[in-house]
């Protein structure tokens, strides 16, 4: 199992029956493939759809039906379309249970940075700021370290924030970390990963949960 699959599979376990979920573009989109059996969730996408279904078979794409990444998707029976304003009323209005987003940095206050690296790359925040502020539970799904090996889980974010103190849970290939008022709580380890490996790859202090266990994925 590669890192991305570990992350997606573990994030899927956070979903509860009946949840309304928004998956960010990139890796979070993969989580749709790992919803545990017996759990029914509804996917919302900020470009104007509730009840988003899987990617259509090649050749059956509909150019009017896409996800927030612009990829062709489908809609399930009982789904609905709406405009962008309505979409963000859903997001900010308190009915969105979970948003899963990627991250560049998360810090121990629950701050998130994922929309720009000044002077380098500025993709823009898209819907991420609204999703982070609006969803009841914010899960950051990301690889534990940056490509150059530098830590992404920090004492204090150095990049411009996406939202202040909104992150609830971080899921990486190495660990599941909860943001608590006392700081980061290390709750689970990735397959074959040790506490020391996680600590080494993390800039911030980690409180090790007394119930620490390996991910069951």
């Amino acid at each position: 199992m590669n890192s991305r699959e570990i992350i997606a599979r573990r994030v899927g376990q956070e979903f509860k029956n009946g949840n309304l979920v928004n998956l960010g573009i990139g890796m979070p989109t993969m989580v749709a493939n790992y919803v545990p059996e017996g759990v029914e969730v509804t996917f919302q996408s900020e470009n104007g759809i509730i009840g988003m279904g899987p990617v259509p078979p090649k050749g059956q794409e509909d150019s009017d039906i896409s996800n927030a990444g612009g990829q062709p998707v489908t809609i399930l029976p009982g789904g609905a379309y709406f405009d962008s304003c309505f979409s963000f009323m859903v997001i900010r209005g308190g009915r969105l249970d979970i948003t899963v987003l990627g991250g560049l940095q998360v810090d121990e206050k629950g701050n998130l940075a994922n929309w720009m690296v000044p002077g380098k790359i500025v993709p823009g925040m898209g819907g991420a700021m609204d999703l982070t502020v609006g969803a009841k539970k914010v899960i950051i799904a990301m690889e534990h370290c940056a490509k150059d090996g530098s830590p992404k889980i920090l004492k204090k974010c150095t990049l411009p924030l996406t939202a202040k103190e909104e992150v609830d849970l971080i899921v990486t290939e190495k660990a599941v970390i909860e943001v608590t008022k006392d700081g980061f709580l290390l709750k689970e380890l990735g397959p074959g990963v040790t506490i020391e490996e996680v600590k080494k790859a993390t800039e911030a202090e980690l409180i090790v949960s007394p119930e620490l266990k390996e991910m069951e994925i």
Partner: protein
Amino acid sequence: MSKISDLKTVMDRIVDGSVIMIGGFLAVGTPEGFVDAIVEKGTRDLTVIGNDTGFLDKGIGKLVVSKQIKKAIVSHVGTNAETGRQMNAKEMEVELVPQGTLAERIRAGGGGLGGILTPTGVGTIVEEGKQKITVNGKEYLLELPLRAEIALIKAYKADKKGNLVFRATSRNFNPLMAMAADYVAVEAENIVEIGEIDPDEVMMPGVFVDAIVPAKQPAIEVKGGA
């Protein structure tokens, strides 16, 4: 009073420096015929309000590549490398707005509101220069309305009065923009007679529409979904 018009009439409205809203989300629901016509016309120094700058060859991105945009007010530019390049080279100004805030600002412009208070962006650089207002102990940013001289939108169906129906996720910003501009032109995939759209199915009443232009589309497009 049919509002059926033609591309030239709409393009006559667009001049150097025009402020234009263009519908679509990563080019889904963007009126590509209008965009192509602006590229052809070569109008410069445009201010463009849209969700994103699309791709190099699709959506609003085509206007970036042709260097016709002075300022873009959008939520996302990550799918168009040329936007990033022009932004870093200071050839084009980009105002990045959180997507939900962008939608509300356009709606406020269309609905005669002076602004809205949103929690989005509090504690980030988005709050710079904005008034913060506390309501029931929670901080909000005052975000101001956006309007344009011209809105270019795409509809799935229009009757000759301009009543519009949008389809699936190509709806996105189109109806919001239809309310927030002084002149609204619609690129319509289908044009029907007045009375053929059920009043309960109208997504945007024709009173907001000034001109309807038939979309130049590939004659057959796969419409596989619901």
